[in-house]
């Protein structure tokens, strides 16, 4: 009894002696909330990033987005239809459960359960087969060289724990069902969530039993939402937080000139582009009746060449963007350097428009979000202004994202003639772009559902089928180049730029990794 008391007292004394010196709390803020702790509820980069500190996939991605081993030590493609994953041994979940092949099989089923938004992580007909406790085969019906491309955010969950906590099915996004599990977490990752108060505060603590070697020196992490841009900047400047995202473009200089904070800037992988309705026989919102000017490649190219991207880069984006000739970030496609933008040339654009039979120009309505991408409305205003130089009168219809997406997507049958959109390929691969954005679709959205303009060259759909199953990287890149070249020449969609990621970071932070997918992963963060 006495001994025990003494030991406890000793432990407390030790804790008191060591804690103040070693305590390193990293406090960060984001403009949005952490909306779900169920890692299958929301397929959205902030949530996936926040949970990526707690949960882990079979694979991970390193600081440069390269695929590296995660909960699988290694994997091999036994034959094109069978991938074998060797699981890391001795891994435990936060709740103490061992990580085994059964958990992988369970996570495969759960990923496909009705409430899950992660169904796109693997082909629907893929089967997971347990070989032994630490080996799993994934059996496919058609070859897929990028099968594991998105598995870094397909987080493994414990079967035992899920069954004990009523979490066998993913938390539905719909209002009719509520899973008590929606506010709990149990991963294998370097951090555990100690408390989560939605919209207010989330507290993380390091997981002392993590299998890897920590690359951080934190003892606690707190996350808070700060909605207002000005407040977020003020909170960082006053030292109330150590890191925040995003920094409004106009505040970068103020951060850089401040004594306690600075701005980290890097390229983001989202591409911003313009869609033109080249599917309908007559545009819904235009002065041209009886025909659709966007069906003519010359009109589309005239639009392209009339837009001065340099001006948008310097004036609207204040230098915080990289102009793009491609529909994908150059970070994600090896041969991106081969592509150059069509030059900005008002005279050439005017000539093209005249040749196409519109010497007087025409009117068109442009749909634009005003709270979705960096300075989205500003970009649209600039585009409208620039197009007026070739006598295209653009009427701008800028709306909040909830309204905008309701109008332009398949749900309203693509009710738009000319619009601005941004896209990040979830798999960080060109196939995703071709499949969702550039390929053909029908009027209801079957096919490339997010090709808002409906521009279609059947060769791209053909190429994309080949790209999906081609395992040879060189050949695959050639096929992708051909598809991108078609879009470039015919100007099916007009790529604009990749916006920059801007994080505000306190000078107390010694090391922080700004990854191009904008996931805030603090397991690489070191504080003074």
């Amino acid at each position, binding site marked *: 009894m006495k001994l025990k008391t003494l030991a406890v007292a000793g432990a407390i004394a030790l804790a008191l002696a060591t804690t103040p010196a070693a305590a390193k709390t990293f406090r960060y803020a984001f403009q949005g*909330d952490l909306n779900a702790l169920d890692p299958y509820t929301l*397929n959205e980069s902030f949530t996936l990033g926040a949970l990526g500190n707690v949960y882990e996939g079979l694979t991970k991605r390193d600081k440069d987005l390269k695929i590296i081993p995660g909960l699988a030590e290694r994997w091999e493609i036994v034959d094109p239809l069978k991938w074998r994953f060797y699981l890391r041994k001795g891994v435990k979940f936060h709740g103490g459960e061992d990580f085994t092949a059964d958990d992988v099989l369970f996570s495969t089923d759960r990923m496909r359960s009705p409430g899950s938004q992660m169904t*796109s992580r693997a082909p629907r007909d893929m089967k997971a087969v347990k070989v032994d406790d630490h080996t799993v085969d994934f059996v496919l019906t058609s070859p897929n060289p990028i099968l594991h491309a998105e598995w870094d955010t397909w987080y493994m969950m414990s079967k035992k724990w899920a069954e004990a906590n009523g979490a066998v099915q993913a938390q539905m996004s719909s*209002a009719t069902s509520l899973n008590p599990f929606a506010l709990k977490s149990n991963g294998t990752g370097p951090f555990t969530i100690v408390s989560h*108060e939605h919209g207010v505060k989330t507290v993380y603590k390091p997981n002392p039993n993590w299998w890897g070697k920590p690359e951080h020196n934190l003892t606690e992490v707190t996350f808070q939402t700060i909605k207002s841009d*000005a407040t977020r900047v*003020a909170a960082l400047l006053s030292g109330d937080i150590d890191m925040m995202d995003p920094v409004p473009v106009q505040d970068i200089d103020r951060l850089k000139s401040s004594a306690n904070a600075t701005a980290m800037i890097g390229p983001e992988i989202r591409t911003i582009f313009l869609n033109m309705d080249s599917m309908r026989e007559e545009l819904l919102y235009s002065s041209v009746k009886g025909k659709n000017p966007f069906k003519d490649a010359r009109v589309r190219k005239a639009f392209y060449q009339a837009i001065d991207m340099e001006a948008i880069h310097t004036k609207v984006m204040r230098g915080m963007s990289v102009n793009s000739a491609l529909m994908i970030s150059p970070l994600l496609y090896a041969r991106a350097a081969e592509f150059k933008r069509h030059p900005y040339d008002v005279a050439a654009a005017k000539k093209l428009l005249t040749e196409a039979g519109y010497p007087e120009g025409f009117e068109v309505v442009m749909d634009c979000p005003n709270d979705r991408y960096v300075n989205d409305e500003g970009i649209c205003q600039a585009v409208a202004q620039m197009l007026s130089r070739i006598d295209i009168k653009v009427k701008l219809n800028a709306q909040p994202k909830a*309204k905008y997406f309701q109008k332009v997507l398949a*749900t309203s049958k693509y009710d738009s003639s000319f619009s601005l959109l941004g896209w990040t390929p979830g798999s960080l691969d060109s196939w995703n772009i071709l499949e969702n954005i550039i390929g053909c679709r029908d009027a209801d959205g079957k096919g490339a559902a997010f090709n808002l303009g409906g521009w279609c060259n059947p060769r791209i759909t053909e190429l994309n089928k080949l790209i999906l199953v081609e395992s040879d990287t060189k050949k695959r890149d050639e096929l992708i180049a051909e598809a991108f070249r078609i879009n470039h020449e015919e100007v099916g969609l007009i790529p604009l730029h990749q916006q920059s990621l801007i994080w505000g970071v306190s000078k107390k932070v010694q090391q922080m990794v700004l990854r191009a997918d904008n996931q805030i992963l603090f397991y690489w963060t070191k504080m003074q």
Partner: protein
Amino acid sequence: MLAFAIRRLLEAAFVMVTVALLAFVLFRFVGDPVNQMVGQDTSLEDRQRLRQELGLDDPVAVQFGRFVANAVRFEFGISYQMKQPVTTIISERAPATLELAFVAALFAVALGIPMGVYTGIHRDSWLSKIFLTVSLIGISLPTFLIGILLIYVFAVMLGVLPSFGRGEVVRIGFWRTGLLTTSGLKALILPAVTLGLFQMTLVTRLVRSEMLEVLRTDYIKFARARGLTQRAVNFGHALRNTLVPVITVIGLQLGAIIAFAIITETVFQWPGMGLMFIQAVQNADIPVMAAYLMLVAFLFVLINFIVDLIYVRVDPRIRIYGRGV
């Protein structure tokens, strides 16, 4: 008296139903909640399925009927974004807003009344002019500007007060209070001043004009003539007679402070109902919006009802009118 109360209650019920209907019609124009709930890669079939599960494809009349039927049982559904029952979210968020509103109102009254009295009595003194200038700023600057200004001065430049949030909170039953911790009290100062500044100005100006009015009346002159002290005249007689309209205005303003703390809460990231509402609007989170609007309507109906009842007690003319009709 009873008939009067019952008629008022019926009217209140009518107001509530009207607000519900108006809110519901408005929701048709806030945008599509489904796109805010799914990731960009979610297939069209999955989006459509979600839409059906949420009942968004049903006719408006059916949706409205369902909403009212649930609302009378205090069921407002589950937030699309937060995946929790709306009643839980509101009961968690309400204490923050109520504490903020209460302290802001206290600030407005505690400073507004003395300033009003002073400027009423000493009309031409330089201090009065300063008070009136300050109150002019309070009434003319928009709330978010005042908030940002205060943050920059007290958090960024001086570093004495926190720039956002509510500080540490203590849980007493279901009520989480920030009034019992130092950091909680410090965090309360800036938002309370921001929110209360306009009301303080209002109270100051109201008290001042009432004082000017009252000080001219005969009974004050008589009181002076009888040789009562200045203090007794000003506070015992004059101020007391100015308070009836002041109390009415403060009562109604309290409702406004609670309901429309939205901007202050956004600027200070104060985790109350206003912040919850603005987030719900941005994400077209209909259950939260509906419940919040109903709550605000209820609050105003309740305050008006109480004020009406007090009037009846105070003013016999209303009582007679109530019986006669």
